């Protein structure tokens, strides 16, 4: 603080006015790229080797090493088995907890792996042979596949994608568009379950009725 009152304010104002005319520090991003040091390791990318091949071998080591388990992989191992750890982003929290359990040494039933019991993809090849491997006939192919397996196993869809060269997303999209195609094996009790879910069974109905009469939850009427 100076002796003259207000001089400090004036000096500050002079400084800001000087800065007003100085060169600016902003990097105008789309036109000017940021100067990223060569050691920067924030790039999200997979590396290619000198032959232009993807270096990633889906060995899952990175997914296992990731401390917060944010890495998850889809892919195919060297023996042609499909080992994709499926899971929507919404189930991420659940998977974390399962993984915590698994680490603690307990066995966890993992529904994520249920889709991937071994599927013999030979019949798929036969079906594709009859349709000349033509992705234009995708719906007949899928219907034939479902007719054979009873449902559409992921392995079969992957095989169709691999052989016909169609994107998996397109096949999955087609399959999920049509109501008569399904991804789970049909069960006998499925329909019954669906109905009973919609309508409470006799016992529950009576219990709630009793509760409403006596004013106590679960009270015996």
């Amino acid at each position, binding site marked *: *603080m100076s002796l003259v009152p207000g001089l400090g*304010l004036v*000096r500050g104002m002079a400084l800001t006015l000087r*800065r007003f005319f100085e060169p600016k520090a902003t990097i105008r991003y789309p036109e000017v790229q940021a100067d990223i*040091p060569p*050691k920067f390791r*924030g790039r999200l990318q997979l590396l290619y080797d000198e032959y232009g091949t993807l270096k990633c071998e889906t060995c899952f080591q990175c997914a296992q090493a990731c401390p917060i388990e944010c890495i998850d992989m889809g892919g195919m191992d060297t023996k042609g088995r499909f080992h994709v750890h499926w899971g929507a982003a919404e189930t991420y929290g659940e998977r974390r907890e399962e993984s915590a359990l698994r680490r603690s040494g307990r066995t966890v039933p993992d529904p994520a792996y249920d889709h991937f019991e071994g599927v013999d993809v030979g019949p798929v090849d036969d079906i594709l042979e009859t349709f000349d491997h033509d992705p234009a006939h995708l719906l007949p192919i899928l219907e034939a596949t479902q007719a054979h397996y009873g449902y559409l196993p992921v392995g079969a869809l992957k095989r169709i994608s691999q052989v016909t060269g169609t994107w998996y997303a397109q096949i999955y999209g087609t399959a999920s568009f049509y109501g008569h195609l399904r991804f789970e094996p049909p069960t006998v009790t499925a329909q019954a379950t669906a109905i009973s879910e919609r309508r409470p069974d006799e016992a529950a109905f009576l219990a709630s009725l009793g509760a409403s009469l006596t004013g106590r939850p679960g009270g015996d009427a």
Partner: protein
Amino acid sequence: MTTTAGPHQHASADDPRVMLDDQIGAFEPIPPYPPRTEREAEFYTLGDGEMFLNMGPQHPSTHGVLRVVLKLDGEKVVDLDPVLGYLHRGVEKLCENADYHQVISQVDPLEYISSLFCEWSPVMAFEKLLDVEVPRRAEYIRVLSGELNRIASHALFMGWFALDLGGLTPILWSFIERDEIVEMLAALTGQRMLFNYFRIGGVNGDLNHDFMSRLGDWMSRATGQIESNLTLLNENEIFVRRARGLGVIDTETALSMCMSGPNLRATGSPFDVRRAHPYSIYPELDFDIPTRSEGDSLARYLLRMEEIKQSLRIIDQCLHQMPDSPIMAKLPRLLRPRPGRAYAAIEGPRGQYATYAISDGTDQPFRMRIHDPSFIHLQSVGLLMKNNLIADTMAVMASLDPVMGGVDK
């Protein structure tokens, strides 16, 4: 251990029914349960003409996600109750389930303003557990990068402090300073904010040309630039009048509040872990511990600005004395220290940053306690704020310089 909410229990604020029943009441700062402690009962009882004001966790100037319940008499703050936990990640628990190398990336985001110091104290504790000697070059690089980070943190402090007092400009100027330092640390460590650079037994990479050229470029004009930025505030009557005599604390109270770092030094006590309990290569370096006797917000601000100059001195010495040696000690890939306990403390930009680690002989720490200065300093806000105005709440809080990532762990 019943889990159903009976009539004798009170609904929590998270209960959606609360929101449905009484929409307005849900936003009252008074907790929807009877007071659990003496202090809570005292605080949540309103006197005549008093009212509660809920500040945060989404207030523009709570430095993150701090929530403070203020008890006001007009504009005067009678009492306040900080409510923490909005950023709690359970880092200590995560560290117990990570192996020793992974701990470094876990503790990194604690004090996101000065990440290197969060890495430093766990790394030092683990080195004690493992009885590792860190190569001297690695120590020099640690000190060099750490002091750079300290300057970045203090520069940002200046901006935040001014912003909480209503000045718009210093925050951007200080971000320019910080950005230069952070860029050069990115050239050294590979990241701008969460560096993940220190390793048990050394550092991740040696000094490189990119870093050195940026550092030399910056060092040549750093002093002048920072001095020039400071004239905006140091001589400003409005700023000085608002900060002087605000939140005064004396040495004895500060010690009993377990304060450390610049906040303690601003009261006149020259406690600095770098000198009080020397670690790394600090005994070999020549620098002063600036102290001030006033103990108010202005003293804390000026002290930090003084520390920037000392840090520049240390960086200069490090560059001149940098020895040639490997940057990593020879260590196995999988670390299994023998069972034991180790405590390591360092002087961060906010105060003493410490780690207490217990090893049980496996590759994961059995218990890792992280002592964060922001957490300790934040609890004295209540002490400093009594009978000040609302306008000064954030100013006092900013002058203590807490980082909510560290407070909430």
